[in-house]
């Protein structure tokens, strides 16, 4: 008889069920390219120059064997004047320069420009995580950090796209990227998102990610204001499978610039392994080739850090560190870094936070190259690392660390306002241009929706028809400007026209350019990163810091006082000075100084009057008589309970704080001792107060009390209530006045 396969023990059954165990983790395997750094097949760095600055060998490969990437990098990507110095530099010495605040960014960049891909990869691979953070803070191009949002939905609903783009802009995203589940819808999406973004804020750049040529064509017609989906890959095989070469990409890059349109390229570790053509190289080395190529073709920036293959990179040892090192490499090549944190790399909230946090803390040109500002299910790129589900988390994390991740709080009324206006603007423009009509029901659902599931009225044919008309009529963004202007959306028309006119000046073609909300360009040129150690570099302005700090959930003592005041009632009144009781059935309930004056609601949500009612009812069940007194001289619950016990005819007292914490005391005990303590105030409900009353009665009679257990919860009780406790205690202390002694209170039940 075969032994049954053993079931894991409970501890492991429990651990197996945790989200992180849904993630695929790979054994390092250089043959498949499943290795983050230093594959045995990575080449040794080398650079041999011939006459007239020809490259005879690069990274151990002779020129005759150069693939297309080597060839383009060797011809265009390296600063050969500095190459001899840079290639001779010790890797550790270079890594130290990268981190050392006293070594200027410009000096690191000067040397990196002369380094081959393998050489730069070796140096940066030495950086530990915190050193990568230092490098990022110092080397990024733009001083002011920023962030990019995805805005998409399952039905390409133009109204919802506009409402969500306006929402993203209101939250502070300075770039918005859309794409399509249905390719034909692309121009409609581009128009709807551009209008929505213009409603939310001025100067928000918009792109629509589709096939390379189609994306350029939309740019030429002004329908988008930047481009990013220009993919580079680290091996020739994958590059050509992607239907491009470095020459076609270089031309495409110039095509964008020739129309005055910002663009960056996309790469990211793990892509080649995913496509089965890594040549056995490490992800970081292949990415080093992509980044060197990005510089060589003249792109101003790179979106990398895994991107679509982030989960592949994250599956190997050191993979998450390599994602961040990729971003630092972009910065070291003097390019704009749009630092991944894009495609979701883990089912685990802990892991995905761990992957992002060092970059968020260090600050980046764009922390996310696609924060899913919509819900996960509506993200047509696939779920992002951060999504609408996480916007409040992100805002609170910014506040926790006092750092600028590019986002700001938007209030409910503000968001409702921009969503309403964005929907109205798209309806007006589509009608004016003959692109389509929308029902009132659809519009109302789009304004209110948390996602496309909330818009059943959406018609899937509408965007398809609109996109076809845009394509066939050759409509441009100038027509959209006219439509907005003619239908009463002058401000938005002006904002979109300003983005078109910005193409003429071309300042936003420079590295790491964004517009601020006054439509000023912030870039390497106008807002250069000047970090040189503590006390230097980017600090949020006082206004910006206040914006970061003012999350919508924060509450002051005044807010709490107002909340308490709303529960003020005449049912609890002081009736005079309290005396000594004589009735052996009497149990005195002592309440804290603010009860019935400033505090009316306990943390559990019961009013003080309700809690007292339960206590009295419990005493009555045991045939006892309750009396309520307010102990004005102390806020200490033990002393309040003890004071009550000493006034009580039975010698048993109950102490009750305004926040709801309660205990049973006896006249002969020291103040800090007690008979029973109900300490977790938020969890003390009506039945527990009743039980407490019953048990106090039994103590008074000398009977056996019912055993009770403090209610237990795995909720973060302290996180939820401690700020309130601080405020409640402050209120209690302000009400505390020993001269007022102890008063009898009367309660209407």
């Amino acid at each position, binding site marked *: 008889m075969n032994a049954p396969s053993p079931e894991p023990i409970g501890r492991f059954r429990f651990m197996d069920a945790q989200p992180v165990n849904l993630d695929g983790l790979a054994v390092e395997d250089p043959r498949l390219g499943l290795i983050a750094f230093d594959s045995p097949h990575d080449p040794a760095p080398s650079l041999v120059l011939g006459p007239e600055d020809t490259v005879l060998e690069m990274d151990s490969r002779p020129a005759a064997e150069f693939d297309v990437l080597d060839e383009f990098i060797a011809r265009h990507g390296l600063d050969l004047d500095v190459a001899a110095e840079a290639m001779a530099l010790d890797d550790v010495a270079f890594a130290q320069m990268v981190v050392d605040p006293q070594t200027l960014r410009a000096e690191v960049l000067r040397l990196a420009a002369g380094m081959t891909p393998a050489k730069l990869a070796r140096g940066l691979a030495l950086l530990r995580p915190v050193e990568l953070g230092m490098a990022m803070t110092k080397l990024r191009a733009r001083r002011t950090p920023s962030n990019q949002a995805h805005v998409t939905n399952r039905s390409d609903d133009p109204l919802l796209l506009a409402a969500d783009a306006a929402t993203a802009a209101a939250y502070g995203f300075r770039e918005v990227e859309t794409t399509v589940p249905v390719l034909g819808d692309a121009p409609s999406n581009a128009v709807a998102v551009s209008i929505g973004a213009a409603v939310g804020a001025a100067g928000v750049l918009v792109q629509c990610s589709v096939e390379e040529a189609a994306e350029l064509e939309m740019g030429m017609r002004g329908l988008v204001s930047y481009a990013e989906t220009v993919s580079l890959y680290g091996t020739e095989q994958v590059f050509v499978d992607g239907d491009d070469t470095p020459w076609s990409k270089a*031309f495409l890059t110039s095509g964008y610039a020739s129309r005055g349109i910002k663009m960056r390229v996309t790469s990211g570790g793990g892509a080649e392994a995913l496509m089965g053509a890594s040549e056995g190289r490490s992800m970081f080395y292949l990415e080093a080739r992509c980044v060197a190529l990005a510089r060589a073709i003249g792109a101003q920036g790179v979106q990398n850090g895994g991107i679509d293959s982030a989960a592949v990179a994250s599956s190997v040892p050191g993979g998450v560190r390599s994602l961040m090192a990729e971003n630092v490499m972009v910065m070291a090549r003097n390019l704009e870094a749009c630092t991944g944190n894009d495609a979701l790399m883990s089912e685990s909230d802990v892991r995905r936070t761990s992957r992002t946090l060092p970059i968020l803390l260090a600050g980046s040109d764009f922390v996310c190259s696609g924060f899913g500002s919509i819900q996960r299910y509506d993200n047509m790129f696939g779920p992002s690392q951060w999504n609408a589900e996480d916007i409040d988390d992100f805002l609170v994390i910014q506040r926790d660390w006092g750092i600028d991740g590019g986002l700001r709080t938007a209030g409910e009324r503000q968001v409702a306002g921009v969503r309403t206006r964005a929907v109205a603007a798209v309806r007006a423009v589509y009608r004016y241009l003959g692109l389509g009509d929308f029902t009132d029901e659809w519009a109302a659902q789009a304004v209110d929706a948390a996602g496309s599931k909330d818009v059943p009225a959406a018609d899937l044919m509408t965007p398809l028809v609109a996109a076809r008309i845009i394509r066939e009529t050759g409509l441009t963004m100038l027509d959209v400007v006219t439509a907005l202007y003619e239908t009463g959306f002058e401000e938005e028309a002006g904002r979109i026209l300003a983005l078109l006119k910005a193409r003429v000046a*071309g300042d936003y073609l420079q590295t790491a350019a964004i517009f601020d909300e006054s439509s000023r360009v912030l870039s390497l040129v106008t807002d250069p990163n000047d970090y040189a150690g503590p006390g230097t570099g980017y600090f949020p302005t006082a206004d910006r810091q206040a914006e970061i700090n003012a999350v919508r959930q924060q509450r002051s003592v005044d807010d709490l006082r107002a909340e308490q005041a709303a529960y003020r009632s005449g049912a609890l009144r002081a009736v005079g000075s309290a005396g000594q009781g004589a009735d052996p059935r009497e149990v005195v309930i002592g309440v804290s100084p603010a009860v019935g004056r400033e505090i009316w609601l306990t943390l559990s949500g019961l009013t003080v009057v309700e809690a007292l009612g339960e206590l009295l009812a419990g005493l009555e069940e045991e045939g006892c008589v309750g009396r309520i007194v307010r102990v004005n001289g102390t806020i200490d619950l033990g002393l309040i309970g003890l004071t009550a016990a000493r006034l009580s005819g039975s010698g048993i007292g109950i102490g009750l704080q305004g926040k709801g914490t309660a205990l049973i005391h006896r006249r002969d005990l020291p103040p800090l001792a007690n008979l029973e303590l109900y300490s977790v105030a938020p969890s003390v409900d009506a039945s527990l107060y009743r039980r407490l009353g019953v048990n106090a009665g039994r103590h008074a009679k000398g009977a056996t009390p019912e055993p009770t257990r403090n209610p237990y919860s795995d909720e973060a009780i302290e996180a939820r209530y401690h700020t309130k406790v601080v405020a409640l205690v402050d209120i209690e202390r302000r009400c505390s006045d020993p001269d007022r002694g102890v008063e009898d209170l009367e309660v209407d039940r």
Partner: protein
Amino acid sequence: MIALGASGRDPLDITLDSVRDGAVEMADVSIHPSTLEHQAQVAEAHANPQLASNFRRAAELTALGDHEVLALYEALRPHRSTAEELTTLADQLENRGAVRNAALFREAAEVYSRRSLLKR
């Protein structure tokens, strides 16, 4: 420096009213080659000669129509063109003053031949 549009028009002259009146074209809100040359000099001054080269290639492409640019891009993609076709395009570009782009096409012809990326 006040940059003029590709059409030579002053952007200050472009208002919502002039757009509504149909008096503005995309060429009026496109970049002028001399502006790209200016941006190239800025890029050089900020330690990025490759970005400068890109802007100078782009300056040449401002003279080409949208469809021409898209067609040239298509011709450079893998296995689209013979070496002769690439060289012919290079000659045409050069004749129109697009010498940097012409050089890019000639280089592509040479490398594509060695790496088997020409039209089969």
